[in-house]
């Protein structure tokens, strides 16, 4: 780290760059493999040596969204010509799209699971971040008796193993009919994210100078007005970062969803593995489903990159 760099130091630095590049490639390889498999024809998904260069196809995504059945006999040329482009892709794979009596295309289980994931993740995020922001403000600005104990209590609820909480919750949900409903999962995810949201938001609100609201109070604002008009806009970045974290957690959650839902309200994480089942799975379809599921998280991670450290340490470490 001396100002004058010696030859050996430059060599060492080059060595570090090479290792870092290799490590990065290794870490990205599984994600690359998911992405590339999602665009492969089925027969190229499981080849030895692995297929790296190929003509990308959209057929895995068509298969992902439609309900399909094995073709008993090849489609007639008229049938083939009458079919829309995406249905031909399914024909090419030796399968046909299942249609209802009225000729409507039957969808696979995936779109509804994806929608369930969206509904549950978005609603629980709004609730957790909303409540968390209020509570964080309360802890940040007012004297609270036993503040440290309460904050520890709030954080400790996050550390509970999901399976431990799931057993009594399952019994309670069964008693009140919340099993396999959106609200059942939304409540669980809100509770799970709430503690995180309080801790993280408290850090963000602590950073907003108290003087801003005090000035507003002097100008005749009520405390509520000061909170909504001064504090919330100042905390906007923090709220956005917290929301993204909560969304990703709810979006990725598996154990609660596996236990509490089975069909109507099932989210994508327990659904996608259940599609592997027995026999030879079509990995291109699984990869397509995985790819679509991971895409929002990948985008959010990129947007969130400067706040990751803070979120991962519950707001304890600020950059």
């Amino acid at each position, binding site marked *: 780290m001396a100002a004058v760099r010696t030859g050996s130091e430059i060599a060492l630095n080059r060595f570090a760059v090479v290792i870092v590049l290799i490590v990065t490639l290794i870490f990205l390889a599984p*994600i690359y493999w998911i992405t590339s498999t999602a665009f492969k024809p089925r027969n190229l998904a499981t080849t030895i040596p692995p297929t790296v260069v190929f003509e990308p196809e959209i057929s895995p995504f068509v298969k992902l969204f439609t309900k399909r059945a094995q073709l008993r006999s090849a489609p007639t040329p008229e049938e083939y010509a009458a079919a829309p482009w995406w249905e031909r892709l399914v024909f090419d794979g030796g399968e046909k799209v299942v249609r209802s009596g009225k000729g409507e295309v039957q969808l696979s289980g995936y779109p509804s699971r994806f929608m369930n994931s969206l509904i549950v993740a978005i609603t629980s995020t709004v609730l957790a971040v909303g409540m968390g922001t209020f*509570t964080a403000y309360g802890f940040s600005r007012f004297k609270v008796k036993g503040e440290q104990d*309460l904050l520890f209590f709030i954080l400790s609820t996050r*550390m509970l193993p999901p399976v431990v909480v799931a057993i009594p919750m399952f019994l309670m949900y069964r008693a009140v009919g919340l099993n396999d409903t959106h609200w059942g999962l939304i409540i669980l995810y809100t509770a799970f994210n709430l503690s995180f949201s309080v801790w993280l938001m408290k850090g963000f609100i602590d950073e907003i100078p108290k003087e801003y609201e005090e000035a507003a109070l002097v100008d005749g604002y009520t405390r509520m007005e000061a909170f909504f008009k001064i504090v919330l806009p100042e905390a906007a970045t923090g709220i956005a970062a917290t929301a993204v974290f909560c969304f990703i957690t709810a979006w990725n959650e598996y154990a609660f969803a596996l236990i509490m839902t089975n069909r109507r309200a099932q989210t994508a994480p*327990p659904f996608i593995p259940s599609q592997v089942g027995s026999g030879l799975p079509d990995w291109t379809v699984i990869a397509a489903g995985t790819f679509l599921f991971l895409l929002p998280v990948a985008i959010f991670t990129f947007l969130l990159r400067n706040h990751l450290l803070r979120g991962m340490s519950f707001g304890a470490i600020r950059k």
Partner: protein
Amino acid sequence: MATAVMTTLDQRTRAASRGMSDISIRNLFIIPTILFLIVFNIFPLLYSLYYSFTDFRASTNAPANFVGLQNYRELLNDPFIWSNFAITAQYVIVSVTGQVLVGFGVAMLLNRDIPFKGLITTLLLLPMMLSMAVVGLFWKLLYDPSWGVINYALGLGNFEWLANPKMALYAVAITDIWMWSPFVMLLSLAGLSAVPKHLYEAAAIDRAGSFYTFFRITLPLVAPILMIAIIFRTMEAFKTFDLAYILTSQPTTEVISIRLYKMAFQEWQTGRSCALAYIVLIMVIAITNIYVKYLNKVKER
């Protein structure tokens, strides 16, 4: 001067009296959250505490009979449960050690003049943001003995990873290391970049060896943050469920969460599983305590 102060005070009290008082706002903001967490976290735990003293089975309508400490006694004397704990411990040690070595190692390398450092860091962080269940599932294809990319890349032929009772737990740990080394890296990087540069300059002037510099300057200063990473990962690895459950069904990978899940939702031994849940819970609370202590320590710096 004096009048100015007087009017300020006056305005403030008037403003406050127009709206809600600070105390009622505080209560309005805090109490719902506390109540929510009590209703949906603490109350269920009390509920299961009660069941842990019964022979209740959720699959039947038979009423729960109070059996006292029998569930706890049987569980603690059950060698199979202890083997589940041993598997969990082995998993925790392997995966956390791996994550610390890889994560801290990469952080040391990244803590230099590296081109595109920001981009590389963001890309490296991607695995930990993804769903364990969904990405874990895909590792099944990577580990496949006949057409898995891993065997091909390493030239291992038809080596069995997941179907091999001896290898399966390591395979799960490797996937976990892939996912969570970035977490250790992220925290280590924060620790490393906070080490004051002048300490290194002083060491260089004293012609201190790099070995000495690392153990006397770098490591002690990074240690508290590294400890946070280690304790947090230990806690998460202890609770692990998704990856092991999805990747294999080997008895050698039956970590305690999987045993608990099976006992509760496949064998329907509800009472017994509540007791086991409590044993696990006590362990988790112990680790959480240590974790929060370190978290506050770092926060105070």
